[in-house]
């Protein structure tokens, strides 16, 4: 089957039209030819009846008395007509003089119904015959009486060349008309199909014009047929998703470049300025320490990015073991405790001592460290961080809440995006780059759990983690 929609439609339309036209032509031909033959036969029968009426019985003789008009009709050179009359015993009573020694075929028919037959003359011309049985009239003056043995047979044959010519003309007329109609139909169908497919070609052109540099264009803003609207809508939805994906990728690349540029600039300036002249050893040491700090933060960022990439590619392996959550939370809080104390932040670990989950300790530590680090960083001065835990069906739920949150509901939707920060400027320049919660979400998802955040009245930011018991290692 051809792949071209235009060809398919054309073949379908023209095929259907040919079929209809053929059926129509055959039906028309059958009806008209039947009518013509009937008309011919009616005229033939009328002539035969006229001849039958001209036969009279005069005593023992049977005579055919033709009038001049009838003789002229029978002798028409254009359409020759012949007759022959038989007695019941087969004796010929009368026949056309033009037959000479030849006889017409003696057709059988019933007394009530004339019989018609098509045949060919010896010279090959077509002819039609009618046979009928009749009672001849009787001459009252001679006192003749009709009798059952007086039923005569009459056959009249007439040249049917005209009828054949008419039917042949009709056949050619129908054939040529059909060819003309089909030819015109092909032309009209081609135009109609081509015009009908214009919206598809337009859409194809519009799609072809869309490049990855600009995915903001949408397809078929106007004059789109109803049938194509669902395709257009689906394509536009697909384009929107593609645009969003490309935008995300571009933003991500730009964010990575941006986050690396500032620390790189710091390192470069530190080295260039330090090397610009001879300095004391402590100055060199100080510059090296500063560079090392910058490198460490860049390394953390690169490792986080790598971890996110591996998690998204499913390349991180887990080893499940029994983990006491309260202990793990305390261990993960330790690096932030001193700084939190300086800011008079109160930390409460309310998880029951025996509460455990069967999961990967290394990755769960990374999750808790990021969440607790985030809380320690953004809790207000003299604020509070509270960690609670709960066990449900084969799941452990951990919630970390901290005060001092100024995020809006709109912000909350973005907290898991890479490099997102509520304040795009970096109060914490070079320290946090907005990857922590993005990493948390991806690790928890890889562990089979879920992460959610919400902002509660009173500026309380809460991160909820649901971590299922995992028995398998992958």
């Amino acid at each position, binding site marked *: 089957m051809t792949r071209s929609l235009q060809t398919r439609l054309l073949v379908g339309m023209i095929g259907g039209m040919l079929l209809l036209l053929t059926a129509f032509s055959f039906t028309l031909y059958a009806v008209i030819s039947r009518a013509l033959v009937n008309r011919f036969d009616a005229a033939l029968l009328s002539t035969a009846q006229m001849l039958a009426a001209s036969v009279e019985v005069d005593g023992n003789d049977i005579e055919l008395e033709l009038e001049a008009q009838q003789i002229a009709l029978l002798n028409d050179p254009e359409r020759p007509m012949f007759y022959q009359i038989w007695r019941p015993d087969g004796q010929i009573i009368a026949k056309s003089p033009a037959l000479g020694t030849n006889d017409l075929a003696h057709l059988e028919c019933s007394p009530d119904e004339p019989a018609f037959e098509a045949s060919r003359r010896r010279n090959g011309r077509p002819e039609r015959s009618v046979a009928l049985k009749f009672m001849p009239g009787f001459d009252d003056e001679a006192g003749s009486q009709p009798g059952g043995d007086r039923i005569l047979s009459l056959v009249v044959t007439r040249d049917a060349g005209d009828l054949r010519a008419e039917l042949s003309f009709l056949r050619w007329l129908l054939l040529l008309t059909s060819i003309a109609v089909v030819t015109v139909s092909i032309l009209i169908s081609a135009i109609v199909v081509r015009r009908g497919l214009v919206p598809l070609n337009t859409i194809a052109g519009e799609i072809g014009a869309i490049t990855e540099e600009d995915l903001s264009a949408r397809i078929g803003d106007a004059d789109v047929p109803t049938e194509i609207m669902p395709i257009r809508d689906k394509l536009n939805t697909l384009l929107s998703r593609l645009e969003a994906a490309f935008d995300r990728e571009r933003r991500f690349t730009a964010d990575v*470049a941006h986050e690396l*540029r*500032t620390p*790189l600039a*710091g390192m*470069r300036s530190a080295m260039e300025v330090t090397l610009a*002249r001879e300095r004391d050893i402590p100055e060199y040491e100080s510059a090296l320490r500063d560079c090392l*700090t910058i490198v460490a933060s860049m390394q953390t960022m690169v490792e986080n990015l790598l971890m996110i990439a591996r998690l998204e590619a499913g390349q991180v392996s887990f080893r499940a073991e029994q983990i006491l959550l309260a202990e793990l939370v305390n261990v993960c809080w330790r690096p932030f405790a001193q700084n939190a104390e300086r800011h008079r932040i109160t930390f409460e670990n309310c998880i029951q001592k025996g509460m455990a989950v069967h999961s990967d300790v290394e990755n769960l530590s990374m999750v808790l460290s990021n969440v607790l680090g985030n809380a320690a960083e953004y809790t207000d001065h003299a604020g509070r961080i509270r960690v609670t835990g709960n066990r449900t069906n084969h799941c452990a739920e951990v919630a970390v809440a901290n005060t001092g949150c100024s995020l809006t509901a709109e912000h909350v939707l973005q907290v898991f995006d890479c490099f997102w920060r509520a304040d795009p400027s970096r109060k914490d320049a070079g320290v946090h780059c907005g990857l922590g919660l993005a990493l948390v979400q991806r690790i928890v998802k890889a562990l089979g759990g879920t992460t959610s955040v919400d902002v509660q009245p009173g500026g309380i930011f809460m991160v909820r983690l649901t971590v299922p018991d995992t028995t398998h290692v992958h």
Partner: protein
Amino acid sequence: MRLLLIEDFRALRQYVAKGLREAGFAVDTSGDGEEGLWYAMSNDYDVVILDLMLPGMDGLEILKKLRAKGRNSHVLILTAKDRVEDRVAGLDLGADDYLVKPFAFEELLARVRALLRRSYVEKNPQIKIGDLRIELGTQRVWRGREQIKLTRREYALLEYLAMRAGQVVSRTDMWEHVYEFKSSSSSNVVDVYIGYLRKKIERPGKPVLIHTVWGRGYRLGVQP
């Protein structure tokens, strides 16, 4: 020449300021947008080096407010944003130059010097006043064929006077453009440094170059 550096990344701020100071500039620094704006509004800086993404207030906002208040300090935007639209936005808001991080410190210095020359309508990187010749790029000074060694502060003062050669420059102006905000010096120190400069620059038998205009300040030039 007095510069203001507003940059929130501590290491970058610290080393750029150090490099600029060693290049002879008086540098004030700030790591916060609002504080940076306060500095820029409070003093007549020759060049403001401005990061765009800042806590407290965005760099472009600072620039907008500066220009709205009629502050004509030259502004060099120093940022990690490298897109054309970011550069256009910065320059359209009245920035004079744009440098993308990371950058070569020498390039930053060259751009700052170019902005300073623009500040004082001085296109030539070499200033000549009589037989006094100052090379702005290398910060070297000659009187005739003799090279004169100057301290960082003496050079800064001479360069500022040279940029405004022929004009009377007040002590306050000199103090504002040569000394840092956190410096404990007062404008009286200017007189002391002018004295040092005279000792090093003026030569017997040669025309006097530093003239005192009583009650108004000093003027650098051949004619009294």
